[in-house]
């Protein structure tokens, strides 16, 4: 590219209004005279508009602030002072009558936020976009199937989902051919009602057929029920790897379907 043209960096800085005034004025002058750069600037602007049309800033800001607040609460709950207080509080219920009798004065430390006692039995937070917690568990195994993992034909899969506000849930599988399949609910008639709460297993299990190849699983939680036909249309409209253009919080796992374990080499193997 000719050095007289604006660089990608300059165009980007101009679009974000980060260029110093004199440089910005010079860049705008150049854009008026240079159709090539103007075309590139317009493409950048179009990409920005497209991005913001599917990534609403207000919703994004709310999600970020909520996540930060939740982390802060978790940090408080995990702090040594908070733990110490919880232990002290438990022991106080036993020790206070004895202490009073013995004339011992207790120093009470301030308590952290109510309702955030570390129990150790909650499922860990899984960082996914839009607060959807989403895991797959193969029956007979303990660990969740991680993104990038393998699902074998014939395996029985339990689906676990959690969401702080709850809503209407679809769990969608998208195979190599791009066509969607409803894993939850299996009948694909209407989304499941999902209550607000932590990660929990849905009822029933999915028994996988003999399909092989890459498969993307997406959990969609929406405030309003989304018809299956709209989910299908969104899957077809989205570019590979992009978030589905739906008003729904989403989490996904990219998996690989393989033939049954011990059932021979996968297709295509020598």
């Amino acid at each position, binding site marked *: 590219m000719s050095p007289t043209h604006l660089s*990608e960096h300059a165009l980007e800085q101009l679009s974000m209004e980060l260029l110093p005034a004199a440089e910005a004025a010079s860049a705008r002058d150049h854009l008026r005279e240079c159709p090539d750069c103007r075309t590139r600037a317009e493409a950048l602007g179009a990409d920005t508009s497209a991005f913001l049309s599917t990534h609403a*800033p207000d919703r994004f800001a709310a999600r970020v602030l909520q996540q930060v607040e939740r982390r802060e609460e978790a940090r408080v709950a995990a702090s040594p002072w908070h733990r110490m207080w919880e232990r002290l509080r438990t022991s106080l219920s036993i020790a206070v009558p004895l202490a009073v009798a013995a004339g011992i004065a207790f120093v009470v430390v301030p308590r952290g936020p109510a309702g955030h006692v570390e129990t150790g039995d909650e499922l860990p937070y899984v960082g996914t976009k839009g607060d959807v917690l989403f895991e797959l568990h193969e029956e007979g195994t303990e660990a969740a199937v991680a993104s990038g993992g393998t699902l074998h034909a014939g395996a029985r899969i339990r689906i676990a989902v959690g969401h702080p506000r709850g809503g209407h849930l679809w769990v969608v599988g998208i195979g190599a051919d791009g066509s969607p399949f409803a894993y939850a609910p299996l009948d694909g008639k209407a989304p499941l009602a999902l209550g607000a709460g932590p990660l929990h297993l849905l009822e029933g299990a999915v028994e996988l057929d003999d399909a092989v190849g890459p498969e993307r699983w997406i959990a969609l939680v929406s405030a309003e029920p989304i018809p299956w036909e709209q989910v299908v249309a969104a899957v077809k409209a989205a570019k590979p790897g992009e978030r589905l253009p739906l008003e729904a919080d989403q989490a996904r796992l990219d998996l690989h379907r393989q033939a049954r374990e011990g059932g021979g080499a996968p297709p295509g193997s020598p």
Partner: protein
Amino acid sequence: MSFFSPATLAETYRRFGPALARKGRRILRDASEVDDVIQEAFCRFVERGEPMRDPQATYAYLQRSVVNLCLDRIAGGRSQPTDPASQLFAAVPAPDRTGEVEARARLSLLLAGLDEETRAIGVLVLLEGQTQEEAAQSLGLSRRTVGTKLQKFEAHVRKRAERFEGDAGPTGEEQP
């Protein structure tokens, strides 16, 4: 407690989010994972305290976070790099030389011991093709600092490669 109002944060995202997404998509293959990275970068931005007064400093912080979070995801095996990113990291050989060299192994080797700023400079200059002046501007650093850190980046890569591959190591000069 947060110093950020939802409106302030939304405006920051409206202004910088699209550019950060483009940056992340040059490194990670999966666009939705870039969305997750950007959300995490903004969380850290909020957690660090008050909003910055200088928009350039805000963008520099967010950009550095996004680049490093993307690299961490690849190094941790959670995300796949784009082809250009993979080529960049292919300069570093895998330690065992058996089978196909994975970008993840290369990247882990590449990044070990490098600070976030140096990693970001390496990506902006060697992957995105920015000049040192441009990288300095977008990261809020002096041109001299960028030059020094870029040398450090290239020397680090060379040293790491020699450690694992004898004299068959990569060189920064091979990069675009």
